[in-house]
């Protein structure tokens, strides 16, 4: 009952002295607002980044050939040269070959579902007289096409025969068909299209039209959007005059496989079997899962760093509250004396002032939470993410405000409680 009375009393005290209360709470408000804003912005960034990464396939492993960095070398006179990566070009023997992949499939048959191979054959414009469409040409294997789960609107997909014979046949998006064939998908099937890439025209036969899935990342207008033209992998490699290897490929792991662990196994296997004698290159594997977790780690590190700064602001704010409580107790010495004469125990005086301090801090905390949420909403809006307020941050802020109130209110409250009633009543 006394607690309720004290809260009302403290609130009326705050309202009676608005400017002072606001200035006192400022440190708390700024501290809490920045904690809430940072946590909410971090929260919404990591939610949307994680979900977009999961869309891309969290269980995929990317294998790539990358340059080795040399070991640190120590010269005879004790000087240390830090390891640097050598700037050498990749030669034919550095690439991952089909033989390696066949061996890998055998070795890891239980954990890999499919291997997605692709090779870019450049990007340019598909032209038909005056009509154009922006495209990028990608040579893909059949696993890749299967994984993409394209929706065919007309024609057929690329077959194994197309792949084996390196036929110059392509799948184009409905956007290309709209631009070049006026939306008549059936007319597109069987027609030849010319694609202008790096000063040359390449001619392909269209065998299928797929539905372009606008994932929302594109900044181009509807008409100019660049869509992918899928070509059999071998045809793309022939066109590029490229060697028999890959510098990068994607492995889809089987269900229930720990992709982070598989990354390590794959790296070890490749490097032990094929790259042991290679001085400049090695195979590295990374999964979306490890990327997501390193991204989340990074975000939380930043959040913690900023929270520490906010914590300092809260500390300063708390000291401000303590200061104002000491002033207020001096001002109200007679009131304290009167209360004691009327039968207030030391405990009830202490409770009154601690409650007052808590009310100041909590009010500051609530204002800070609201301000922080507004800031976070504005910031996420600006960055183009969906705002997702951090519930943990709000709970943390409320708890922390109360703790500051108790911690910095205790000393002044105790001082008030220990006042001698006679002296307090005589105080002018």
């Amino acid at each position, binding site marked *: *009952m006394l607690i309720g009375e004290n809260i009302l009393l403290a609130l009326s005290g705050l309202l*009676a002295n608005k400017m002072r209360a606001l200035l006192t709470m400022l440190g708390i408000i700024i501290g809490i607002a920045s904690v809430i804003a940072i946590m909410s912005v971090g929260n919404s960034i990591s939610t949307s980044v994680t979900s977009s990464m999961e869309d891309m396939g969290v269980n995929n492993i990317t294998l790539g050939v990358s340059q080795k960095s040399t070991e640190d070398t120590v010269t005879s006179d004790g000087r240390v040269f830090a390891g640097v990566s050598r700037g050498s070009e990749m030669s034919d023997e550095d690439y991952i070959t089909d033989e390696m992949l066949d061996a890998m499939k055998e070795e890891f048959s239980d954990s890999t579902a499919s291997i997605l191979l692709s090779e870019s054959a450049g990007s340019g414009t598909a032209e038909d007289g005056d009509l154009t469409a922006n495209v990028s040409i990608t040579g893909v294997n059949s696993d890749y096409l299967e994984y993409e789960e394209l929706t065919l609107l007309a024609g057929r997909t690329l077959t194994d025969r197309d792949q084996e014979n390196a036929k110059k046949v392509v799948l184009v998006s409905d956007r290309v068909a709209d631009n070049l064939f006026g939306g008549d998908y059936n007319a597109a099937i069987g027609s030849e299209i010319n694609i202008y890439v790096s000063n040359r025209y390449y001619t392909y036969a269209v065998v299928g039209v797929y539905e372009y899935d606008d994932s929302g990342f594109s900044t181009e207008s509807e008409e100019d959007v660049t869509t992918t033209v899928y070509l059999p992998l071998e045809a793309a490699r022939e066109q590029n005059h490229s060697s028999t290897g890959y510098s990068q490929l994607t492995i889809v792991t089987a269900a229930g496989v720990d992709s982070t662990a598989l990354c390590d196994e794959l790296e070890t296997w490749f490097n032990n079997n094929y790259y042991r004698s290679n001085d400049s290159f090695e195979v590295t594997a990374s999964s979306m899962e490890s990327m997501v977790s390193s991204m989340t780690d990074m975000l939380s590190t930043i959040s913690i760093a900023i929270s520490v700064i906010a914590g300092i602001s809260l500390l300063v704010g708390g000291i401000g509250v303590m200061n104002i409580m000491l002033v207020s107790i001096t001002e109200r010495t007679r009131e304290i004396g*009167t*209360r004691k*004469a*009327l*039968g207030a*125990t030391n405990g009830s005086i202490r409770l009154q002032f601690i409650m007052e301090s808590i009310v100041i801090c909590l009010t500051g905390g609530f204002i800070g939470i609201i301000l922080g949420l507004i800031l976070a909403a504005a910031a996420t809006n600006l960055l183009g993410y969906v705002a997702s307020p951090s519930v943990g941050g709000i709970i943390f802020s409320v708890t922390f405000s109360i703790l500051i109130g108790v911690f910095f209110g205790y000393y002044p409250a105790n001082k008030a409680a220990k006042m001698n009633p006679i002296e307090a009543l005589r105080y002018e």
Partner: protein
Amino acid sequence: MNIIGVLDRPTEGEYILDGVDVAKAKDRELSGIRNQKIGFVFQTYNLISRTSALRNVELPMMYAGVGKKERQERAKHYLEMVGMQDRMTHKPDELSGGQKQRVSIARAMTNNPSIILADEPTGALDSKTGRRIMDIFHRLNQEEGKTIVLITHSNELAEETQRIVTLKDGEIIGERKGSAVC
């Protein structure tokens, strides 16, 4: 006054109030005695300025742990007794000196103490309002049977009481009967 009001402990001699030795009592017990057995009326009223007259009167009952509803009823009752029923929601700033003193008498009465300790209750008031305050004290003494300890410099006021103890520099120098009828 501080000793009688158990705001302070006697350094010499004994003060036994209702069987409690004040010199040896704990702080908490003294708070209880002040709350239940003594009603304070100060020269400067000492009302809490941020809250209404009603809440000021409720204060001693709050420390006694009386429930909200009963507290308000009793506070209203005593405010009516001192003729302040029309100004219960006013803050002390909005009241005249005499009105403030009446509120503080109501405050002193709420826990029904046996002693009312009035320290120069009319010292800051003009003689007319002072008269009204004294009339209230007489009424409390006669109708409610309260012991009223009145501290004053005015011989005139002292004559209205039943017993006069004269102090000089902290020493009792005389005691006689007042002119009031027993």
